[in-house]
């Protein structure tokens, strides 16, 4: 019901479906607790985050399709990681992770290294080799 009031709707229907608790002041200056959905201004900057992520993912996809980057780069963006986060998740040093973004290096990677990436992205090793 509350959903109808908003001018600004999330693009993803799953977003903004939880009510949260917020503190605020009422008209008389007393503190009150409200359980409510996000209001319009909150929606704008939360949506901005996902818009930027979508653009990053799409840009990464293009780079992989045109053969400039390896699929690891795409899946990193898809999982909202930066190279540093990915490096700590797979326990491989940052410069090696960055090197694995090169398609030529990626082709020569061992199965066990690929398995580490696959686990971090919750994929199978075969799925890691292509992007959809």
């Amino acid at each position, binding site marked *: 019901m509350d959903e109808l009031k908003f001018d600004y709707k*999330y693009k*993803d229907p*799953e*977003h*903004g*479906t*939880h*009510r*949260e*608790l*917020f*503190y*605020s*002041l009422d008209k008389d*200056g*007393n*503190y009150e*607790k409200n*359980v409510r959905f996000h209001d*319009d*201004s*909150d929606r*704008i*900057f*939360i949506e*901005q*985050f*996902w*818009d*930027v992520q979508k653009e990053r993912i799409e840009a990464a996809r293009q780079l992989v399709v045109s053969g400039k980057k390896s699929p690891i780069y795409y899946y990193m963006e898809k*999982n*909202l*990681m*930066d190279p*540093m*986060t990915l490096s*700590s*998740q797979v*326990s491989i040093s940052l410069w090696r992770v960055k090197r694995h973004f090169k398609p030529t290096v990626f082709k020569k990677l061992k199965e066990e290294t690929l398995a580490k990436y696959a686990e971090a992205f919750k994929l199978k090793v075969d799925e890691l080799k292509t992007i959809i």
Partner: protein
Amino acid sequence: MIDFTHRQAGHCESGTTSNLFRYYGMDISEPMAFGIGNGLYFSYIPFLKVQYAPMISFRNIPNTIFRRAAKRLGADAVVIKKFKNPQESLDALNRNMEKGIPTGLQVGVFNLPFFPPEYRMHYNMHNLVIYGKEGDTFYVSDTVLELPQTISTADLQRVRWVKGAFAPHGKMYWINKVDKNVDIKKAVSEGIAKTVYELTGMPFPLIGTRGIRFMAKDLKKWPKKHGQEKASFYLGQVLRMSEEVGSGGAGFRFIYGAFLKEAGEKFNNQELLDAAEMMGNVAMKWREFSYIGARNCKSRSEPTEDYGMLGDMLIDISYKEEEVYKKLAKIKI
């Protein structure tokens, strides 16, 4: 299953702390736990990037609230910071469940199945309480959500052992015994003194009210330095950190105001009530800042508001906030 009452809260850690205290028969409200445990903070670390934007935090480092609140309220509490391996952490949790102790955990939210999807980022400082086990399923009280949840062992192990910045390493904490005759007045006064120090007295320009001013000055330069798109994203980051999940609104300033108010009413202290009102005004200013700032996030390349004006607004807020802390420093409780 333990007879544990789930109550939704504004912030995850003060919420879990308050719920744990309440389980042991000590009625510590969320704002009270937040204030006594020094939840309020501000830090701006431009050279550390989180999700491609500068790191901004309105809260203290994880586990501060629980540790300090437990210490000041004289509770016999245990914090296990780190486990050697996942199996050990699971065994410890199972032992607690057999003994019937509701246990707080630090987890990462990216793989948390029931978490609101718009918040699923690589954020590893979330807190929740496990209060029972049945076969392969754990009962979870997550204060972000209205209702209690369940989680499978595999999922729980994944979120407890997530790697990256502020990795939890299976951290868990619980209360053994509370002291119901503790002097709450002393706890509140210690909590306020420490918060005042952390927000005005730290000898480091990126923390506290000086940090807000430092960020305001940077904010004015963002469009020139990084271009409109990035400036808008950075501004969005400030707003996300202050208004988003687990802040209770206005970068925790509302929760803190509610704490001052509750303390003022409890101890019949007019000065605390005045401070609470001042904090409320500051919080309203933060709200206003995010309303106006949000317009610049709508269309990233065409700002509708001037960054200089937004920066000035923040500087104004920082001085207003400083006044509150100066007043608090003088109050004798």
